[in-house]
């Protein structure tokens, strides 16, 4: 049972607070993705779990054991480093087998595991080379193979596929997910690529400025963002926002349209995903500004009462800049946010 509990973890670097009161539980065998913009504290959190960084306050528990005082090697984890940390003086084989050698496993077992994980990462032909002779992407795969070869209970991965080309990355994504599910490994996976996050995660923790804003399943993060930040970070293009004026008894006026919403006294923001809009007889009057044909869809950036508003429409439509479209939201897809707290309002 490799469950990870992070309780009230905060981290200061001098006067700069990189992490604020993080609370997170990652279930046994769960694939948790930490998603956030550059500099939001993903690596710092991962390194605290690994024991490479000490939390200023808070506790880390792995498999029901408090591990704060344990050194990384006693935590039952294995890790892929953001900067790879592949040893330059060892061959690829010895790099992947490094941890196994430290455990004093017999040679044939080391060989078996190294060859298996190298095969998974498609680097079996590189085993005799030194890492200095490898490309960045090859080196990164050595780092992943080295972590997998340990067959750990918990694997921590810091942007492990960031340096691969799109095709290889897609392939490795599936490969990695499959291997980890098969070996029942609990995984924490750091990325700032939301497609990667959506496609791999059991749950996504969205981080922003050292806080976890939302930790939920990919579809929930996408459908019901807990805060404006999540709504504008997840989804490509992100959600549209329009100001909503209270019209009394749970009715709201958004850009001239009347909607049913929360029974709330204050002004709110209304949000809709661009892909949840369609052309209708009744709806927002939107003047098209930029039209981008993306093949599968047509991305139209419009102006609704002075607010930028994007719609993903059918690629067969012919829309020109300057056209005025009438856009209606799909039933039940609008969301409400409190502009003061930026949190979602039900």
């Amino acid at each position, binding site marked *: 049972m490799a469950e990870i509990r992070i309780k009230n973890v905060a981290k200061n670097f001098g006067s700069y607070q990189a992490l604020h009161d993080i609370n997170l539980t990652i279930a046994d065998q769960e694939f948790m993705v930490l998603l956030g913009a550059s500099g939001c504290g993903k690596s710092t959190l991962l390194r605290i779990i690994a024991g*490479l960084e000490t939390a200023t306050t808070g506790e880390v528990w792995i498999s029901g054991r408090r591990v704060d005082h344990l050194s990384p090697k006693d935590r039952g*984890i294995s890790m892929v*480093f953001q900067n790879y*940390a592949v040893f330059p*003086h060892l061959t690829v084989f010895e790099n992947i087998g*490094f941890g196994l050698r*430290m455990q004093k496993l017999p040679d044939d077992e080391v060989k078996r595991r190294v060859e298996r994980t190298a095969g998974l990462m498609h680097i079996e032909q590189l085993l005799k*080379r030194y890492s*200095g*002779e490898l490309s960045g992407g090859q080196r990164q795969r050595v780092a992943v193979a080295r972590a997998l070869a340990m067959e750990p209970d918990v694997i921590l991965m810091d942007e492990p596929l960031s340096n691969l080309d799109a095709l290889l990355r897609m392939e490795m994504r599936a490969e990695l997910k499959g291997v980890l599910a098969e070996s029942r490994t609990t995984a924490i996976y750091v990325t700032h690529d939301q497609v990667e996050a959506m496609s791999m995660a059991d749950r996504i923790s969205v981080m922003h400025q050292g806080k976890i804003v939302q930790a939920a399943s990919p579809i929930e993060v996408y459908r019901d963002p807990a805060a404006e930040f999540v709504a504008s970070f997840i989804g490509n293009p992100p959600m549209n926002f329009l100001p909503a004026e209270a019209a009394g008894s749970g009715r709201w006026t958004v850009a001239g349209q009347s909607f049913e919403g929360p029974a709330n006294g204050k002004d709110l923001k209304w949000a809709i995903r661009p892909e949840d809009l369609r052309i209708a007889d009744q709806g927002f009057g939107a003047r098209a500004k930029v039209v981008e044909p993306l093949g599968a869809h047509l991305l139209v950036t419009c102006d609704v009462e002075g607010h930028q508003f994007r719609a993903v429409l059918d690629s067969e439509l012919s829309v020109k800049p300057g056209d005025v479209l009438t856009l209606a939201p799909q039933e039940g897809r609008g969301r409400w946010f409190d502009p003061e707290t930026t949190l979602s309002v039900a």
Partner: protein
Amino acid sequence: MEARLLPYFLILPVTLFLCLFFLYPFALVAQQAFGTENGFSLDNFREVVTYWKFPISMKNTFLLAAAVVPIQLALSLLMATMVTKMQKGRDLVLYIWTIPLGISDLAAGIIWLAIFEQSGFLNSMMVGLGVTEQPMSLLSYQTPWVVFLAIMLAEIWRATAIMLVILVAGIGLIPKEYYEAADVFGASRWKQFTRITLPLLRPSLQTALVLRVILAFEVFAVVAALGGTIFPVLMGEIYAYQFDLQNGGAAAALAIIVLIISIVFTLIIIRALRVPKGATI
């Protein structure tokens, strides 16, 4: 200027300097060593090698190097690791440890002579503590091993820092992330030292050892101060040929022998600590 020629142009001053102050004197020494009135000959070499003091001074020089260099290597590695691990006061400690570097080797020899002499600190202390009744003559023919020990101590004290400085710089160049990875993958502190630090330190170890071993074969002033004629070494013999016996040819021949020994050891060290082909460090 053509880009192809520029590098040569830039190293020209250094090359001229080296030719003038190194190659030219070297040629003169070689000429002196190999030349007599009747042209090229090995007479000078024959003379120095068959002299009764040659095997002893050769043996002493090697013995001293063999005793001192490994200890210095271990010590400087230990000290460099300690300094690197320090959070505060690191520079201060490093400065203090490198003070002996600023002292000339003769002065260092005299400092240690002041300790070991019959009227020196060590004797005063032992008498003061009642360990011995009378000051003893420590550096004498009767106790050659004390002489050897005193020279060893002085050499270790004097010349460990030169390796230390090189190794500290070398360790500082090893990225921290390798230790983090080693930590995660279960390497103990000792394993990190043998599997990460030592292999990645090979270029610095090469430099430090080559420098130190060459210096060990050139040991002179410390030995002269502490051992005098009790402990003859190669450099002392060169000095004796040149200034006591006024035999420049023999001195030059012996100097060339020392040079050859130094070159051989340099090659051995470079080969032993070479980085495998393809591994970048």
